[in-house]
């Protein structure tokens, strides 16, 4: 037997890269405060990773959480963590030298073939979109970014998107920068202004659903980076079930056409016990 416990993605969805299932302890080598509520931790982790993939990152004493890799292309990988619940708030205080456990990378990746890409990110969604956009831009694709946040200082990776030569349009809930309101409005406008071959989106599922529906008339394929509660990340425990899929191995990136038919997409997820919980009710 030679296949490690790596999670085996389903045929017909994207290829997942082979993964390192065994946990490694790494030291945080760099810590960057990206926004008032978001910190990036960098660490040396040699396994190859593709933009879109995530790792299971263990904060000893706290939880182990799925986190997208916000830096994928060198041995110095990174995750960008937004303060949400207890663990992710504690993570904000981790310094250089802190030790965390990493396993992965897991899951599939964004397909970099599209030549004109609209990137729509809300909240910490930019964490996974940035390395993907960077890779696409490096291959010569045109990248346009619609970036949303509650307020101006929370706009994640704005400078990073700009420095890769992308056109960046922002939206804030409070209007402190760019359009006031949801980033979906900006995305709608951009879809009308320019032709795109693909839309990449990550953020609250309700937002992603809106983006997906908006792009339908134009016939532009939308790819959503989804989240579900994760435990094994090996396609086994069923915690991350999303319709017939397991986000950890079949995703996290799905073509919207696979998600839109699912009654739960944008509506409900599952709590750690496996109960179906409507979004926003937690």
């Amino acid at each position, binding site marked *: 037997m030679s296949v490690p416990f790596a999670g*085996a993605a389903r045929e017909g969805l994207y290829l997942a890269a082979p993964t390192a299932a065994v946990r490694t302890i790494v030291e945080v080598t760099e810590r960057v405060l990206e926004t008032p509520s978001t910190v990036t931790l960098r660490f040396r982790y040699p396994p190859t990773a593709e933009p879109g993939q995530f790792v299971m990152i263990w904060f000893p004493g706290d939880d182990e959480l799925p986190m997208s890799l916000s830096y994928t292309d060198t041995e110095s990988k990174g995750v960008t963590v937004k303060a949400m619940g207890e663990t992710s708030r504690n993570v904000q205080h981790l310094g250089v030298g802190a030790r965390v456990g990493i396993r992965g990378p897991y899951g599939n990746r964004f397909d970099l073939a599209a030549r004109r890409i609209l990137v729509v990110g809300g909240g910490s969604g930019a964490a996974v979109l940035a390395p993907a956009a960077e890779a696409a831009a490096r291959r010569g694709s045109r990248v346009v970014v619609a970036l949303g946040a509650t307020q101006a200082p929370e706009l994640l990776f704005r400078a990073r998107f700009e420095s890769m030569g992308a056109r960046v349009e922002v939206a804030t809930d409070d209007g402190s920068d760019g359009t006031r309101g949801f980033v979906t409005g900006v995305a709608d406008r951009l879809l009308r202004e320019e032709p795109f071959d693909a839309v990449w989106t990550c953020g609250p599922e309700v937002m992603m659903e809106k983006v997906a529906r908006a792009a339908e008339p134009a016939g532009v394929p939308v790819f959503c980076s989804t989240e579900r509660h994760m435990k094994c990340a090996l396609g086994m425990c069923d915690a991350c079930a999303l319709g*017939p899929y397991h986000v950890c191995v079949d995703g996290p990136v799905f073509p919207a056409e696979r998600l839109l038919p699912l009654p739960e997409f944008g509506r409900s997820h599952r709590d750690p016990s496996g109960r179906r919980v409507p979004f926003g009710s937690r």
Partner: protein
Amino acid sequence: MAELSVRVGPLALRNPFVLASGIWGESGESLAGAWDAGAGAVVTKSIGSAARPGYPNPTIESYGDWGLLNAMGLPNPGIEEYPREIAVARTRGATVIGSIFGGDAEEFATLAREMAPTGVVALELNLSCPHAEGYGTEVGSEPADVEAIVGAVVRAVPIPVIAKITPNTPDPAGLAEAAERAGAAAVSAINTIRGLAIDTELHRPVLAHGLGGLSGPAIKPAGLACVWQIYDRIRIPVIGIGGISTAEDALEYLMAGASAVEVGTAVTQRGIRVFGELAHDLDRRLDALGYPSVASAVGAAHPARR
């Protein structure tokens, strides 16, 4: 083309490869997915009286290709919510076996009464999870307890009852005999083997819960030994579990005395398509060895059969 369909006591299965409890078993869509992939039947996640989040992460530790340690902690949506998941799987045509866990005979019986009407073809009693305080091995290690629990469930419901036995015992066959005495239709073995992993860098157990259970290829010898010993001591059928990831593994279990097998950890190595592949490969292997059916290979390694 060997005959792949099997009978496990009163149950008729289209093939001997059953999805093990705790793998793809929380949602109805997943159960249906395993069925569509070719499983002969699917066992649900073990369901308890109330929703349980399970233990915090880390809940798993992998040992490369030979083993996996887990302490999920019996997360489950609870018996009240879960029937809707079974309904989804049943709508899609799946043969579903319901797994339940409880702290005593009464709780098991209550759960059984709620689970039976959902259309599950049988109940598998989790008497063997090695890392859940008050459940699993803690109520399934003494023959008297096994007899009491199985008896209570058998009296409570009209459908076949399968007792899932622990390997963490000196005498698995004694537990199986207790289940048989109490009226079980079959025995399944094994659940995971109690295990622990320590991170020396951080000098702490890796799993949040500390103790966990080992599954995967490493436990195949232990599973085979249990099935071998149990087969010699009871007349009801045995379902073999533990470390099955190839048709050859399954055939070892059949020859050791299993009438069917459950497959868990292999799903993470080979994907859910493992079910279709196992059935295909077993068919060819039985042909090559000259067995006309799965049933004809059951117990073939026992002296009386050689």
